[in-house]
Structure formats: structure tokens, C-alpha cells
């Protein structure tokens, strides 16, 4: 294994565990963004440009949009009734 590969794998492992341990949704979605980026780098290192592109578009557009909207919506206080 090359040094670049080891670094890329380690980054993915550490960030992935951080995503799980981060309990506050908004902060978690930020960490998750960084985790997505580390996956993109790993995929490039593993010579999978198609997958890396897929992860870029998904990680920068689809995941954050859907997540942030949900976080905003579920953060509100309970409706008084």
C-alpha cells in the first residue's frame, strides 16, 4: 500500500466514526460532508473516477439539501395543542 492510500483509508475510518459519534444533527451533517469528501478522495485513490463523481454530486447536493431541510423542520418546538 502506498502512503497516500493509507492516509485516505485512515481519514475515512476516523471521519466515519466521528459522524456516528456526533449526536447533534446539524453538527453531524457538517461532519458528514467532510466524511463524504474523504470518500471522494479515497475513490480517486482507488482509481474509481466514476464513483468519485457520483459521490461528489451526491455529497455536495443531495445529502445536504435533504438533511438540512429535515433538520430545520424537525427542530421546531412541538405545536401547542
Amino acid at each position: 500500500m502506498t502512503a497516500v492510500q493509507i492516509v485516505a483509508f485512515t481519514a475515512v475510518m476516523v471521519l466515519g466514526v466521528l459522524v456516528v459519534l456526533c449526536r447533534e444533527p446539524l453538527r453531524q451533517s457538517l461532519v458528514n460532508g467532510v466524511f463524504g469528501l474523504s470518500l471522494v478522495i479515497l475513490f480517486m485513490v482507488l482509481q474509481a473516477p466514476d464513483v468519485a463523481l457520483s459521490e461528489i454530486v451526491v455529497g455536495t447536493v443531495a445529502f445536504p439539501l435533504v438533511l438540512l431541510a429535515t433538520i430545520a423542520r424537525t427542530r421546531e418546538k412541538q405545536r401547542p395543542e
Partner: protein
Amino acid sequence: MSFYPFVVAAVLFVAGLYGVVTSRNYVHLAVCLTVMQSSTYIVLLSIGYVHGGTAPIFKGPAKAPPVDPVVQSLTLTDVVVSVVVLALILALAIQAHKRAGTVDPDKMTDLHG
């Protein structure tokens, strides 16, 4: 060291599962599911990797051995599935919040027994 990628994948698989088991928020839980799923990307792509390999794109004369293209195509499908699952679970979580006023799995106790 050549086993390291698989250790990373196993760690993420178990870590994602741990997140699901202990989660206090469906939004957090859904993201943990995607972490668990990313362990499958890593296994697939690590299996198909060849030392010193290049991407399986053939323009001009080949310089180095190409890596396995099949696992890449499987991973592409896998990535789409992860978006879909995330979106559906979050949509359900939004509705759960509207109906129950909470997104804590342990506080929704209507169904049991």
C-alpha cells in the same frame, strides 16, 4: 498492511450499526445508516483494486493494468440506493415529527407487544 482496507470497512460497518442502536434521533440514525452502507463501498472497491492500476478507461495505449470495472458499477448502484434510503427515512421522520412531536425512536412507543 494489505489487510488495512478491510479493517476500515469492518470498523465502519459496526460503527454504523452502533449508531443505529444507540440513536436518539431519526435524523442522526439515517446518517448512521449511510455510514454503515459506505463500508460496503469500501469493501467493493478495495476488492477490485490492483497494485499500480489505472481507471478502466481506455483512451490511447494502455500503460498499466486496469482495476476491476465491475465493482465500480456495483458501487454506483449502491450510492444511488444510499440517497434513496436517506430521503425516504427523512421524509418519514418529518411526518413522525408532525404526528408525534418527537423524532426520538425510544419515545415513540405506540406499537409494541
